[in-house]
């Protein structure tokens, strides 16, 4: 993993089209601003993990057949 130290208002550029700017630091919370093309999907990591968990649970619990509704 590449580790870079940045101050507030400094940026990191990823490839040609993505920049990440440190907007502010308060205690242990860092606010970052991400500029990326619309085709690049940006979400918080824990959201992915929650959806992965829900998918796996749905797959594991899926019955052999559904009841007639």
């Amino acid at each position, binding site marked *: 993993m590449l580790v870079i130290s940045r101050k507030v208002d400094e940026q990191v550029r990823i490839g040609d089209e993505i920049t990440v700017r440190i907007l502010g630091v308060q205690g242990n919370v860092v606010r970052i601003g991400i500029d990326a093309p619309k*085709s690049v999907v940006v*979400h918080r990591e824990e959201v992915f993990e929650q959806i*992965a968990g*829900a*998918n796996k649970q*749905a797959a594991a619990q899926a*019955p052999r057949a559904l009841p007639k*509704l």
Partner: protein
Amino acid sequence: MNCESTRFGTLELDDEHVLHFPHGLVGIPGQFWALVSTGEDSVILWLQSLEDADLALPVCRPQIVAPDYKIGTVPELQGIDADVGEPIEQLAVVTATDSLADWTINLVGPILISARTGKGVQAINERDGLSLRAPMWQHVEPSDLASASAVEYLDLRLVRVDEER
């Protein structure tokens, strides 16, 4: 082509039945899936993996159980070469247990499939107040589903089987 499945036996698939998820589903392997309908009147469909016979997820159009459900801007659509203006089927994963009353539906991770290309992606809906495990029967009763239609756009891509084995 034919494809084996644990629940439905051998599925006879034409090209339009094969749905391609270039990025897979979140946390679940496999790029190729089919949408299986087990009866004319069933609004719950199965997203069946074409790479793992055991793997199938019950799915349902989220608007059927959550009438106000909306998906905002969806950057994920660009990953499947789709455009917001074209017919995109929206489906949500249902966690179905033995007890019907305990069923939940994932409104945070909708599955979007382009009717034109058959390509799909699982998106993330970050609107406030949505649940990964929303109670299925919060707004509708199971009996209300009889009048709903299972799909809006993907009719020609549905694999129809008589019933589960």
